[in-house]
């Protein structure tokens, strides 16, 4: 389980995440929705240990991270990994090389007996054939054959999003955190990603998605979490969208639905 307990994060005097607790089970898809500036992205970064919370606890399976930290410990990447809204693809590598680099370096690290192997953050190594097969499978799944040799600045935003997602899942993480990854995809591509995310969750990968697409949330989510002002206002299954209890959620949904 990926669990955040009592997470708080401020930037300056402004509290962005305010005493948030949530849990993600393996194989579960959780969707975080909320208005702009509600703290969704910061919460995601804190859960992924990219941003250090001011206080709270994060538990990733049997590893516990307390904040403030008493002892600096190795974050459990790539067991937990993130795809950011800005994607952060490496500009000097093609999309294919972006996807391949973590895989080929992980194999080299395993062969060289990287200390992280002992720490348990690296799974057992695999053959070159496995590497090529995994790469080929991902490229086929995301239909990237026609553009995978382009550099990031030569590809469209939708193509880059698919590449960033492929890069994140190539090492088969246990927890995948996604920040607005569907924003520039068309309906067809969104449904492809949705089907892939479902496959990942069936393999036991826990997924957290920040999105503003309510239909995506409805179709994808096992759990929906509504955040505003850095706090969880309401959480539950699809009833959060279909029959919300909290007035704030009702107001948000009515604004979204009238705009669309």
């Amino acid at each position: 389980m990926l669990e955040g307990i009592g997470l708080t994060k401020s930037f300056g005097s402004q509290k962005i995440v305010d005493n948030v607790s949530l849990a993600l089970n393996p194989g579960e898809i959780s969707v975080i929705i909320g208005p702009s500036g509600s703290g969704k992205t910061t919460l995601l970064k804190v859960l992924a240990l990219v941003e250090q919370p001011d206080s709270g606890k994060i538990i990733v399976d049997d590893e516990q991270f307390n904040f403030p930290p008493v002892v600096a410990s190795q974050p459990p990447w790539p067991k937990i990994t993130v795809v950011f809204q800005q994607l952060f693809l490496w500009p000097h590598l093609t999309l294919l090389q972006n996807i391949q680099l973590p895989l080929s370096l992980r194999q080299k690290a395993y062969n060289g007996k990287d200390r992280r192997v002992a720490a348990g953050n690296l799974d057992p190594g695999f053959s070159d054939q496995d590497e090529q097969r995994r790469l080929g499978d991902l490229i086929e799944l995301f239909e990237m054959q026609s553009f995978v040799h382009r550099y990031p600045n030569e590809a469209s935003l939708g193509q880059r999003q698919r590449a960033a997602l492929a890069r994140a899942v190539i090492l088969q993480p246990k927890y995948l955190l996604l920040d607005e990854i569907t924003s520039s995809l068309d309906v067809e591509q969104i449904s492809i990603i949705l089907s892939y995310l479902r496959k990942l969750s069936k393999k036991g990968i826990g997924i957290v998605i920040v999105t503003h697409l309510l239909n995506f949330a409805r179709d994808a989510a096992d759990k929906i979490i509504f955040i505003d002002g850095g706090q969880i206002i309401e959480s539950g299954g699809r009833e959060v969208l279909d029959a919300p209890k909290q007035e704030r959620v009702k107001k948000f949904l009515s604004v979204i639905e009238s705009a669309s």
Partner: protein
Amino acid sequence: MSVVDILSKYHSAFESGLLTTFQLSLIIWSVGLTLGTLLGALAVKWKLAVGIPSRLISFTLSGVPILVFLFWLHYPLQSLLGVVIDPFITAALTLSIINLFAVADVIREVLSEFPAQYLIAGKVCGLSAQQILLHIQMPIVLRQTVPVLLMIQVNMLQATLFASLISVNEIFRVAQQINSQIYRPVEIYTALGLLFLAICLPLNGLALWLKAKYTRDNSER
């Protein structure tokens, strides 16, 4: 006497001058590139202790012409200290200092503006710090710095001509000495120009080629 005749007749003198120029350049390049890179990296790591003093010195040097700096180190400073230093060493020291801070400026600028998000992306993909440095940070930094640094080194090579004014027998001084004997300035300085074109143009061409090939326009299309 044509340019070719002059080059042929005085080839040993030109070779000697060229050798001195290259020796001077090698010292300036190696000191500038190694110490300048180190200074630039330290300036980013220790902004207060190293970065600010480095920028102040670099800013001050940018306001002093190379020739004035060279003359100041050769004449007034040595007189004040009561020492006599070989002009070759003075020239090497002066131009090395200028090169060092020019290189440090470039390295500091590129490192301090390096997008941290690329490093974060590496971390969450499970790359170690060393892997991120070797496969992500260094390739990007090298692509941005090598063309610029190459052009700076070409400028430093050209700046070695100033050493002739403090009696260093580099190529320009040799050309002056030959001219004082045979008074054929057109041919002599044309020969010198051709020599420098033969050396500098390929290097500048290489820098431009590297820049075009490896410095990507990363703006979104």
